[in-house]
């Protein structure tokens, strides 16, 4: 894919991003922008959060409607299976909408006093796309999950 623009020695981060991009590309309709060499805005957003880390799949659920009739207000719930103790808790949860003009939707900061790592809100989705959830754990690891959402009427305006 577009790995040639990066260093020739694949780091763990590039592998992780590449894997994520590959999955997303497979799930999305063919788009001219996917053929470009530049990483997309959502990939940069994911990379900024993960740094060198390779995310783990699972232990996290991202609930979204399969079909969102109104992209202006799409309810979502994100929950991480975590004991939320001092030693083992979720520090942050990031929501990224891969095809929004600005992919970063929100970052939620949690701590052991949260008791339960679950947050709900409502987001805008400009068009049919994948939504990514990333959880940052107290031991430095990351969890990542992805959900496709079909959008009937897009949000974000413009």
């Amino acid at each position, binding site marked *: 894919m577009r790995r040639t623009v990066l260093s020739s020695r694949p780091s763990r981060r590039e592998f992780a991003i590449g894997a994520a991009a590959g999955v997303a590309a497979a799930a999305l309709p063919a788009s001219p922008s996917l053929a470009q060499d530049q990483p997309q805005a959502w990939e940069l957003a994911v990379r900024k959060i993960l740094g060198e880390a390779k995310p783990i799949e699972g232990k996290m659920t991202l609930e979204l409607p399969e079909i969102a009739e109104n992209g*202006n*207000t*799409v309810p979502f*719930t994100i929950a991480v299976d975590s004991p*939320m103790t001092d030693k083992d808790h979720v520090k942050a949860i990031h*929501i990224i*909408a891969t095809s*929004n*003009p*600005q*992919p*970063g*939707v*929100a*970052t*939620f*900061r*949690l*701590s*052991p*006093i*949260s*008791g*339960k*790592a*679950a*947050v*709900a*809100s*409502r*987001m*805008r*989705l400009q068009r049919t796309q994948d939504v990514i959830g990333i959880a940052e754990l107290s031991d430095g690891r990351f969890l990542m999950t992805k959900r496709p959402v079909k959008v009937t009427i897009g*949000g*974000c*305006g*413009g």
Partner: protein
Amino acid sequence: MSKPRVKLPESAKVGEVIEIKTLISHVMETGQRKDPDGKTIPRSIINLFTATFAGTEVFKAELHPGISANPYLSFFMKVPGPGEFEFAWVDDEGKRIAEKLKLNVT
């Protein structure tokens, strides 16, 4: 930005994990929309929400234009003891609205 609404359980026990729901009215203008003359409507959103309980921050949300108008948030807290919540919303213009609410701990 006005009329914050917060829903807490009527009472809670120490150690219980409670859900907190908040809602505030705000247009959450994305900065992507254009007015009828074709001029971009400037971005104006609530970009930060914090919940503090008995002086300790228990939840923070950094919001971007992808959050819907009239932002709704639900989150949890393990009740450490009696105390009062302070919920605060801050918008792009630096305006801050705060709401204080006592938790009935039994």
